[in-house]
């Protein structure tokens, strides 16, 4: 799955935020706050990856077991889908 075009992830005063630009800002002119793991996963899904691939990268990066990583990656992916941020 891949995040739609037009959303940028930025760090502002120590906070990770996502905002829409261009055409995306018409659909979404709010802002999302995400935490550090969220930001890590966002960058992966921005390039495009499966939930399993994201979980593997997460397990490596944070030195956690793959099952925990899978739960977190799936939860995050669900949030993205619910917010309509994933390319169909």
């Amino acid at each position, binding site marked *: 799955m891949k995040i739609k075009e037009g959303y*940028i992830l930025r760090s*502002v*005063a120590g906070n990770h935020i996502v905002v829409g630009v*261009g055409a995306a*800002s018409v659909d979404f002119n*709010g*802002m999302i706050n995400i935490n550090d793991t969220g930001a890590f996963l966002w960058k992966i899904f921005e390039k495009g990856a499966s939930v399993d691939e994201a979980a593997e990268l997460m397990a490596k990066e944070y030195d956690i077991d793959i099952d925990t990583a899978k739960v977190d990656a799936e939860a995050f992916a669900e949030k993205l889908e619910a917010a309509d941020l994933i390319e169909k």
Partner: protein
Amino acid sequence: MKMHKIADLNVLLDYHGKVLAHQAPAYETDEKCVPDIIIDLPDEFLAEKIKENPHLNASECEYVFTGAAFYNNIVKYNGFLLHSSAVEYKGNAYLFSAPSGTGKSTHTGLWQKAFGAEARIINDDKPAIRATDEGVFAYGTPWSGKTDLNLNVKVPIKGICFIERGEKNSIRKISTAEAIALILNQTLRPYTAEGMNMLLDCLDKVLRVVNVYILTCNISEEAAIVAYEGMQ
């Protein structure tokens, strides 16, 4: 076309209407300098805007859209507008922001009642904010919304405050995360990723230095005192 110094930027501005004729001269400069921003709205553009905005006359349209041109450009210079009423008191600027109609101008009016002539309105609608090496400043500009309350001054910002109406007066400091969302809602959001990144760069600098608060307030003079004391 005349040269103006607005928010420490050289602005070459052309206008014909009454509103700017009244409000722009305070910002004129004789200095020979290279313009940072050139605002020269084409006649066809203005004609189109006048048609689209029947509630505004030609002079008001020119005022609104020259202002938009200015604020769209300051993002390139570490600046942005905050839809707020900015008051100066004892050498510091305090910005009160909220959606239209909440009572920003009413509140800064209370500062003038409570603190007298020492409290001056820097810009009653859209002060320019710029993050510089010497700190974060609020500036008056010729564009101050429905009133002509603006001063050609540059004042360091002590606090940014979002107003909510309430029965009792109270103020609390908020997190930068909360502040970002509130500020983004009361500024011009650039359309392009490049512009948005410049705005967020500036916001990053501002939020590392300036505290942001939420003020719940009524329309008594006490509201001004609670706000001022809460931001020291």
